[in-house]
């Protein structure tokens, strides 16, 4: 089974003005994706847009792939104009996946980051405390589906048009604080309550401070501009703390980093290792 294949579009419909759900039917049997993995998808029919764009797998059922995407620039706009019956080239599944949660877990989604986390929430039904933050109520998508799947949902919006007004990371912090006071983390907790996150960099950065203070493991899905998605161009790197340097040279090596490819060693990294 090749990771490079063609698909027919069987659905490309709007969830609202900014978000669409793309459903693809591959021409052949394909490799099943794991939660957190992504695909490079052709978005136009000629040389412009030229490069494929990365999208997290949103759902995989009966050999159909679906993706939830936000219209952002040239590529996603072009994709949004394609119709049922159009044929696209796709590469995937690519990258690593979220490590398996041990018992209940926390999922923190910022905006379209929900797309990457949903497969995890779906796979481990009724085990996720979902924290979902967005700019406003119009940016919250797939709420019905998530309500059924998650154990509990906490919502914040920047303008207060839905849920609590404010940042989702504040809600996570409060929740962890309450758990600590109650001293009864979660009934199904075996190891530490792990945290999974996907969203904009400022959200992930704020979250890294909270999870470090709480001493909880946290896995973040990172985004970078990509050209190839398969590890060849070195376009998509993130800074990762250089553990070898700090082992050898201690404090002197603090702040030293190496680059890792989001498309190959990622997109999911241990949040502790990321150099912001």
């Amino acid at each position: 089974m090749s990771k490079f294949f063609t698909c027919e579009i069987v659905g490309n419909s709007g969830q609202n003005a900014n978000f669409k759900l793309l459903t693809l039917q591959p021409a052949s049997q394909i490799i099943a994706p794991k939660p957190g993995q992504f695909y490079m998808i052709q978005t136009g029919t000629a040389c412009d847009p030229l490069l494929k764009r990365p999208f997290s797998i949103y759902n995989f059922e009966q050999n159909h792939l679906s993706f939830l995407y936000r219209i952002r620039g040239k590529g996603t706009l072009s994709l949004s104009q394609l119709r049922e019956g159009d044929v696209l080239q796709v590469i995937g599944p690519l990258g690593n996946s979220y490590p398996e949660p041990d018992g209940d877990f926390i999922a923190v989604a910022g905006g379209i980051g929900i797309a990457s986390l949903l497969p995890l929430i779906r796979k481990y039904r009724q085990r996720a405390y979902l924290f979902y933050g967005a700019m406003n109520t119009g940016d919250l998508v797939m709420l019905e589906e998530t309500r059924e799947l998650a154990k509990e949902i906490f919502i914040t919006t920047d303008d207060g048009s839905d849920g609590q007004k404010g940042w989702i990371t504040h809600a996570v912090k409060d929740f962890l604080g309450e758990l600590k006071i109650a001293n009864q983390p979660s009934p199904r907790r075996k190891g530490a309550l792990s945290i999974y996150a996907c969203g904009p960099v400022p959200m992930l950065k704020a979250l890294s401070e909270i999870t470090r203070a709480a001493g909880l493991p946290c896995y973040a899905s990172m985004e970078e501009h990509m050209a190839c998605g398969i590890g060849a161009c070195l376009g998509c790197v993130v800074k990762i703390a250089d553990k070898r340097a700090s082992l050898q040279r201690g404090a002197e090596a603090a702040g030293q980093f190496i680059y890792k490819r989001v498309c190959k060693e990622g997109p999911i990294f241990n949040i502790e290792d990321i150099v912001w």
Partner: protein
Amino acid sequence: MVKRTGARSLSVKIASLKLKNPVMTASGTFGYGEEYAEFIDLNRLGAIVVKGLSITPRLGNPTPRVVETPAGMLNAIGLQNIGVKAFVKDKLPFLRQFKVPVVANFFGDTVHEYVSAARELSKAEGVNALEMNISCPNKQEGWIVFGTDPKSMDGVITEVRKATDLPLIVKLSPNVTDIGRMARVAENAGADALSVMNTIRGMVVDIRRRKPVLANNTGGLSGPAIRPVAVQMVWDTCRAVSIPVIGMGGIMTAGDALEFLIAGAVAIAVGTANFVNPVATLEIIEGIEKFLAEEGVSDINDIIGSLRVNE
């Protein structure tokens, strides 16, 4: 192997290097080969040109490193690489499993760094030719790009020539006024072949933030957008020198590749197309075979340089 009647020969020669077909990979777009092994049979390629190597590892630039442009892309990777030593130890053994010539692309900040890299790579088992990227600034000469200054260019190629017996391919920069002149400098300094061309310098501005999109401000333009420029540069170069020329710049299809071959390139390299379509190289090889069949030509060498220029 017995040749089937009507079999077509795709094999070409670049100096002493024999290729089973004229389709190579462009440096920096094919990693060290490993990434593509799950998509194509590497044995079918004419040659593999690996990501640019320096004598010591390079971290590369901050991000964003890539941005798409109309029918192309800008990149400012900053020549991130694992260094010659790690390449020889960790990457070459993988490449040695295949029956494909390996061309090691290399660069330096100083003449000394170029020479050291060339010397080390020449000692390694499984490196069949060197490709010298001269589109780098010279640290000791006020950061003038080697490949845009005839004197620096002559100096660095002359020294590298003394350091290696492998076929030496010099990769020219298009950011010059007269590529034919630069090509002759490289030929006289001892190059066995030329690669034409590297990326064209470019910039994209984010108008809201009033900042260049790339962290490095500028980057190198590649992809179909540069193809006509590259075809013309290959044509000019072929007329200026008698050593073989490898053509590259925006090749996406067999038709694109044939433009370069007809203009005089002995072989071609596929770059950005690998990102868009990981099996592009194989489709191009098959397309060239099909073209030869349609045209009733039995040897690719009869196509090379067959351009009928308008009077």
